[in-house]
Protein backbone atom coordinates (compact mmCIF):
# COMPACT_ATOMS: atom_id res chain seq x y z
CA UNK A 1 0.00 0.00 0.00
CA UNK A 2 1.25 3.46 -0.88
CA UNK A 3 2.41 5.42 2.12
CA UNK A 4 2.59 9.03 3.25
CA UNK A 5 4.91 11.18 1.15
CA UNK A 6 4.31 9.26 -2.10
CA UNK A 7 2.96 11.07 -5.13
CA UNK A 8 -0.62 9.88 -5.63
CA UNK A 9 -0.83 7.95 -8.93
CA UNK A 10 -3.11 9.77 -11.35
CA UNK A 11 -6.17 7.99 -12.70
CA UNK A 12 -9.26 8.62 -14.73
CA UNK A 13 -12.34 6.62 -13.75
CA UNK A 14 -16.01 6.80 -14.59
CA UNK A 15 -18.32 8.21 -11.95
CA UNK A 16 -21.35 7.84 -14.22
CA UNK A 17 -21.68 6.29 -17.69
CA UNK A 18 -20.74 9.63 -19.25
CA UNK A 19 -18.69 11.38 -16.61
CA UNK A 20 -15.06 10.69 -15.87
CA UNK A 21 -13.15 11.91 -12.83
CA UNK A 22 -9.45 12.64 -13.26
CA UNK A 23 -7.48 12.93 -10.04
CA UNK A 24 -5.09 15.64 -11.27
CA UNK A 25 -8.10 17.89 -12.02
CA UNK A 26 -8.41 18.15 -8.24
CA UNK A 27 -4.96 19.60 -7.60
CA UNK A 28 -5.43 22.57 -5.25
CA UNK A 29 -8.04 20.66 -3.26
CA UNK A 30 -7.61 17.95 -0.64
CA UNK A 31 -8.87 14.60 -1.85
CA UNK A 32 -10.07 11.59 0.15
CA UNK A 33 -10.05 8.22 -1.59
CA UNK A 34 -12.07 5.52 0.13
CA UNK A 35 -11.45 2.13 -1.47
CA UNK A 36 -14.01 -0.45 -0.39
CA UNK A 37 -14.84 -4.04 -1.37
CA UNK A 38 -18.35 -3.75 -2.77
CA UNK A 39 -21.60 -1.82 -3.01
CA UNK A 40 -24.64 -3.00 -1.06
CA UNK A 41 -23.26 -3.78 2.38
CA UNK A 42 -25.77 -3.48 5.27
CA UNK A 43 -27.06 0.04 5.79
CA UNK A 44 -26.47 1.17 9.35
CA UNK A 45 -22.87 0.08 9.51
CA UNK A 46 -22.09 1.09 5.96
CA UNK A 47 -18.95 3.10 5.46
CA UNK A 48 -20.32 5.07 2.51
CA UNK A 49 -23.48 5.97 4.46
CA UNK A 50 -21.28 7.40 7.19
CA UNK A 51 -19.19 9.49 4.78
CA UNK A 52 -22.40 10.69 3.18
CA UNK A 53 -23.35 12.29 6.49
CA UNK A 54 -19.96 13.89 6.80
CA UNK A 55 -19.73 15.86 3.57
CA UNK A 56 -20.07 19.19 5.33
CA UNK A 57 -17.13 18.34 7.59
CA UNK A 58 -15.05 17.41 4.55
CA UNK A 59 -16.09 20.61 2.76
CA UNK A 60 -14.94 22.58 5.79
CA UNK A 61 -11.46 21.18 5.16
CA UNK A 62 -11.68 21.88 1.43
CA UNK A 63 -11.73 18.17 0.71
CA UNK A 64 -13.53 16.12 -1.93
CA UNK A 65 -14.27 12.46 -1.21
CA UNK A 66 -14.51 9.66 -3.76
CA UNK A 67 -15.54 6.08 -3.07
CA UNK A 68 -13.81 3.50 -5.27
CA UNK A 69 -14.71 -0.14 -5.82
CA UNK A 70 -14.62 -2.58 -8.73
CA UNK A 71 -18.39 -2.37 -9.18
CA UNK A 72 -19.62 -1.04 -12.53
CA UNK A 73 -21.03 2.45 -13.05
CA UNK A 74 -24.56 1.04 -13.29
CA UNK A 75 -24.20 -0.75 -10.00
CA UNK A 76 -22.82 2.44 -8.42
CA UNK A 77 -25.73 4.47 -9.80
CA UNK A 78 -28.30 2.11 -8.34
CA UNK A 79 -26.45 2.03 -5.01
CA UNK A 80 -26.14 5.84 -4.88
CA UNK A 81 -29.82 6.23 -5.62
CA UNK A 82 -30.90 3.64 -3.07
CA UNK A 83 -28.72 5.09 -0.31
CA UNK A 84 -29.16 8.73 -1.24
CA UNK A 85 -25.41 9.26 -1.58
CA UNK A 86 -24.23 12.74 -2.48
CA UNK A 87 -20.64 12.09 -3.51
CA UNK A 88 -19.16 10.23 -6.50
CA UNK A 89 -18.46 6.54 -6.49
CA UNK A 90 -15.82 5.60 -9.04
CA UNK A 91 -15.81 2.37 -10.99
CA UNK A 92 -12.41 0.65 -10.97
CA UNK A 93 -13.96 -1.73 -13.43
CA UNK A 94 -11.90 -1.92 -16.63
CA UNK A 95 -9.17 -3.01 -16.50
CA UNK A 96 -10.52 -4.47 -13.28
CA UNK A 97 -8.93 -3.09 -10.14
CA UNK A 98 -6.16 -1.22 -12.00
CA UNK A 99 -6.32 1.84 -9.76
CA UNK A 100 -6.65 -0.26 -6.60
CA UNK A 101 -3.51 -2.11 -7.72
CA UNK A 102 -1.65 1.15 -8.38
CA UNK A 103 -2.38 2.18 -4.79
CA UNK A 104 -1.45 -1.28 -3.50
CA UNK A 105 -4.86 -2.08 -2.10
CA UNK A 106 -6.22 -4.80 -4.39
CA UNK A 107 -7.20 -8.15 -2.94
CA UNK A 108 -6.31 -10.67 -5.68
CA UNK A 109 -8.09 -13.55 -3.94
CA UNK A 110 -11.42 -11.80 -3.57
CA UNK A 111 -11.12 -9.80 -6.79
CA UNK A 112 -12.11 -6.67 -4.86
CA UNK A 113 -10.50 -3.54 -3.47
CA UNK A 114 -9.38 -3.74 0.11
CA UNK A 115 -10.88 -1.32 2.62
CA UNK A 116 -8.34 1.46 2.48
CA UNK A 117 -8.29 5.21 2.98
CA UNK A 118 -6.02 7.84 1.46
CA UNK A 119 -5.92 11.55 2.13
CA UNK A 120 -4.15 13.40 -0.68
CA UNK A 121 -2.99 16.97 -0.19
CA UNK A 122 -3.43 19.94 -2.51
CA UNK A 123 -0.13 19.21 -4.26
CA UNK A 124 -1.20 15.66 -5.06
CA UNK A 125 0.94 13.94 -2.44
CA UNK A 126 -0.39 11.25 -0.13
CA UNK A 127 -0.61 12.79 3.34
CA UNK A 128 -2.12 9.82 5.17
CA UNK A 129 -3.15 6.29 4.37
CA UNK A 130 -4.81 3.53 6.33
CA UNK A 131 -5.63 -0.10 5.61
CA UNK A 132 -8.55 -1.46 7.57
CA UNK A 133 -9.40 -5.13 8.11
CA UNK A 134 -11.93 -5.86 5.35
CA UNK A 135 -14.73 -6.66 7.79
CA UNK A 136 -14.24 -3.48 9.81
CA UNK A 137 -15.63 -0.11 8.80
CA UNK A 138 -12.78 2.25 9.71
CA UNK A 139 -15.04 5.22 10.52
CA UNK A 140 -13.92 8.74 9.77
CA UNK A 141 -11.87 9.91 12.75
CA UNK A 142 -8.57 9.15 10.98
CA UNK A 143 -9.61 11.14 7.92
CA UNK A 144 -10.56 14.16 10.02
CA UNK A 145 -7.30 14.02 11.97
CA UNK A 146 -5.35 13.91 8.69
CA UNK A 147 -7.30 16.83 7.22
CA UNK A 148 -6.77 18.85 10.37
CA UNK A 149 -3.04 18.22 10.23
CA UNK A 150 -3.08 19.49 6.63
CA UNK A 151 -4.93 22.66 7.66
CA UNK A 152 -2.16 23.41 10.14
CA UNK A 153 0.60 23.05 7.57
Amino acid at each position, binding site marked *: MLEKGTKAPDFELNATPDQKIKLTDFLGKNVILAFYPADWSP*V*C*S*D*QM*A*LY*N*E*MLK*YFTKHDAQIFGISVDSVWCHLAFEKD*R*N*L*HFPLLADFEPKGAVSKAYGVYDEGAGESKRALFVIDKEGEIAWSYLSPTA*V*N*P*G*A*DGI*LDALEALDKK
Partner: protein
Amino acid sequence: MSKLKPEVTEKDHAQGKQNAPITIVEYGDYQCPYCGDAYPIVKEIEETFGDQINFVFRNFPLQEAHPFAFPAAIAAEAAALQGKFWEMHDALYENQYRLDEDLFDELAETIGLDIEKFQADSTKVEVKQKVEDDFESGVRSGVNGTPSFYVNGNKFDGAATDLYQMLKESTE
Protein backbone atom coordinates in the same frame (compact mmCIF):
# COMPACT_ATOMS: atom_id res chain seq x y z
CA MET B 1 -8.55 1.40 19.99
CA SER B 2 -10.86 4.36 19.54
CA LYS B 3 -11.52 6.52 22.57
CA LEU B 4 -14.57 8.49 23.51
CA LYS B 5 -14.07 12.20 22.71
CA PRO B 6 -15.03 14.23 24.61
CA GLU B 7 -15.54 12.30 27.81
CA VAL B 8 -18.93 12.23 29.50
CA THR B 9 -19.89 15.64 30.90
CA GLU B 10 -22.90 17.08 32.68
CA LYS B 11 -24.26 18.13 29.25
CA ASP B 12 -24.84 14.45 28.46
CA HIS B 13 -28.03 12.57 29.20
CA ALA B 14 -27.15 9.97 31.79
CA GLN B 15 -29.27 7.33 33.45
CA GLY B 16 -27.51 6.14 36.55
CA LYS B 17 -25.03 7.39 39.11
CA GLN B 18 -22.17 9.53 37.88
CA ASN B 19 -19.68 7.62 40.04
CA ALA B 20 -20.87 4.19 38.86
CA PRO B 21 -17.93 1.88 38.10
CA ILE B 22 -19.11 1.24 34.54
CA THR B 23 -20.11 4.03 32.20
CA ILE B 24 -21.67 2.91 28.94
CA VAL B 25 -22.12 5.45 26.17
CA GLU B 26 -24.33 4.59 23.22
CA TYR B 27 -24.26 6.52 19.97
CA GLY B 28 -27.69 5.82 18.52
CA ASP B 29 -30.13 6.70 15.79
CA TYR B 30 -33.86 6.52 16.57
CA GLN B 31 -34.70 5.14 13.14
CA CYS B 32 -31.92 2.55 12.96
CA PRO B 33 -33.40 -0.94 13.34
CA TYR B 34 -30.24 -2.25 15.03
CA CYS B 35 -30.59 0.50 17.66
CA GLY B 36 -34.21 -0.52 18.06
CA ASP B 37 -33.04 -4.09 18.67
CA ALA B 38 -30.45 -2.88 21.17
CA TYR B 39 -32.94 -0.84 23.19
CA PRO B 40 -34.52 -3.66 25.25
CA ILE B 41 -31.10 -5.24 25.78
CA VAL B 42 -29.70 -2.01 27.16
CA LYS B 43 -32.70 -1.87 29.50
CA GLU B 44 -31.90 -5.41 30.59
CA ILE B 45 -28.29 -4.44 31.22
CA GLU B 46 -29.44 -1.53 33.37
CA GLU B 47 -31.80 -3.76 35.32
CA THR B 48 -29.30 -6.57 35.81
CA PHE B 49 -26.35 -4.44 36.85
CA GLY B 50 -28.25 -1.64 38.57
CA ASP B 51 -26.06 0.88 40.37
CA GLN B 52 -22.94 -0.43 38.71
CA ILE B 53 -24.01 1.14 35.40
CA ASN B 54 -24.21 4.72 34.27
CA PHE B 55 -25.82 4.76 30.84
CA VAL B 56 -25.35 7.74 28.53
CA PHE B 57 -27.03 8.30 25.18
CA ARG B 58 -25.60 10.49 22.41
CA ASN B 59 -27.28 11.24 19.10
CA PHE B 60 -25.87 9.85 15.89
CA PRO B 61 -28.62 10.31 13.31
CA LEU B 62 -27.81 9.07 9.81
CA GLN B 63 -30.03 11.63 8.16
CA GLU B 64 -29.63 10.57 4.56
CA ALA B 65 -30.35 6.93 5.29
CA HIS B 66 -33.09 7.62 7.83
CA PRO B 67 -35.31 10.65 7.13
CA PHE B 68 -36.88 10.69 10.62
CA ALA B 69 -33.68 10.14 12.56
CA PHE B 70 -32.78 13.80 12.90
CA PRO B 71 -36.27 15.10 13.81
CA ALA B 72 -36.54 12.26 16.33
CA ALA B 73 -33.25 13.30 17.92
CA ILE B 74 -34.56 16.88 18.04
CA ALA B 75 -37.75 15.65 19.74
CA ALA B 76 -35.76 13.90 22.46
CA GLU B 77 -33.56 16.94 23.03
CA ALA B 78 -36.61 19.22 23.13
CA ALA B 79 -38.21 16.88 25.69
CA ALA B 80 -34.98 17.14 27.69
CA LEU B 81 -35.66 20.85 28.17
CA GLN B 82 -38.72 19.77 30.17
CA GLY B 83 -36.72 17.15 32.05
CA LYS B 84 -38.13 14.26 30.04
CA PHE B 85 -35.32 13.15 27.76
CA TRP B 86 -35.48 9.51 28.80
CA GLU B 87 -39.26 9.34 28.56
CA MET B 88 -39.04 10.55 24.95
CA HIS B 89 -36.01 8.35 24.19
CA ASP B 90 -37.91 5.28 25.39
CA ALA B 91 -41.15 6.25 23.65
CA LEU B 92 -39.31 6.75 20.34
CA TYR B 93 -37.74 3.31 20.45
CA GLU B 94 -40.92 1.67 21.63
CA ASN B 95 -42.77 3.23 18.70
CA GLN B 96 -39.97 2.95 16.17
CA TYR B 97 -42.08 0.73 13.93
CA ARG B 98 -44.46 3.64 13.26
CA LEU B 99 -41.99 6.51 13.27
CA ASP B 100 -43.16 9.45 11.17
CA GLU B 101 -43.44 13.22 11.44
CA ASP B 102 -46.80 13.13 13.24
CA LEU B 103 -45.54 10.85 15.97
CA PHE B 104 -43.49 13.43 17.89
CA ASP B 105 -46.41 15.57 19.05
CA GLU B 106 -48.38 12.46 19.93
CA LEU B 107 -45.55 11.09 22.07
CA ALA B 108 -44.98 14.51 23.63
CA GLU B 109 -48.59 14.47 24.72
CA THR B 110 -48.39 10.87 25.97
CA ILE B 111 -45.41 11.59 28.19
CA GLY B 112 -47.02 14.76 29.50
CA LEU B 113 -45.05 17.56 27.92
CA ASP B 114 -46.24 21.12 27.53
CA ILE B 115 -46.90 20.83 23.78
CA GLU B 116 -46.48 24.50 22.93
CA LYS B 117 -43.14 24.66 24.66
CA PHE B 118 -42.11 21.35 23.06
CA GLN B 119 -42.91 22.64 19.59
CA ALA B 120 -41.12 25.92 20.18
CA ASP B 121 -38.08 24.16 21.67
CA SER B 122 -37.94 21.82 18.68
CA THR B 123 -37.07 24.76 16.42
CA LYS B 124 -34.36 26.18 18.69
CA VAL B 125 -30.82 26.51 17.35
CA GLU B 126 -29.34 25.19 20.63
CA VAL B 127 -31.35 21.99 20.34
CA LYS B 128 -30.15 21.40 16.78
CA GLN B 129 -26.62 22.25 17.88
CA LYS B 130 -26.73 19.65 20.66
CA VAL B 131 -27.62 16.93 18.14
CA GLU B 132 -24.90 18.08 15.75
CA ASP B 133 -22.32 18.30 18.55
CA ASP B 134 -23.18 14.74 19.54
CA PHE B 135 -22.77 13.59 15.95
CA GLU B 136 -19.41 15.31 15.61
CA SER B 137 -18.19 13.83 18.89
CA GLY B 138 -19.22 10.42 17.52
CA VAL B 139 -17.20 10.90 14.38
CA ARG B 140 -14.23 12.00 16.51
CA SER B 141 -14.65 8.95 18.69
CA GLY B 142 -14.54 6.60 15.71
CA VAL B 143 -18.22 5.72 15.49
CA ASN B 144 -18.56 3.61 12.35
CA GLY B 145 -22.21 2.65 12.53
CA THR B 146 -25.11 2.57 14.93
CA PRO B 147 -25.38 1.59 17.63
CA SER B 148 -21.78 2.11 18.77
CA PHE B 149 -20.98 1.51 22.42
CA TYR B 150 -18.17 2.83 24.62
CA VAL B 151 -17.33 1.26 27.94
CA ASN B 152 -15.43 3.52 30.32
CA GLY B 153 -14.25 5.56 27.37
CA ASN B 154 -13.10 2.74 25.10
CA LYS B 155 -14.92 1.66 21.96
CA PHE B 156 -16.61 -1.69 22.40
CA ASP B 157 -16.53 -3.74 19.21
CA GLY B 158 -19.80 -5.58 19.37
CA ALA B 159 -23.56 -5.40 19.62
CA ALA B 160 -25.67 -4.89 22.75
CA THR B 161 -25.92 -8.65 23.29
CA ASP B 162 -22.11 -8.93 23.24
CA LEU B 163 -21.95 -6.08 25.71
CA TYR B 164 -24.37 -7.85 28.03
CA GLN B 165 -22.29 -11.02 27.80
CA MET B 166 -19.05 -9.17 28.46
CA LEU B 167 -20.48 -7.44 31.53
CA LYS B 168 -21.86 -10.70 32.83
CA GLU B 169 -18.49 -12.39 32.50
CA SER B 170 -16.55 -9.51 34.02
CA THR B 171 -18.79 -9.22 37.07
CA GLU B 172 -18.99 -12.93 37.81
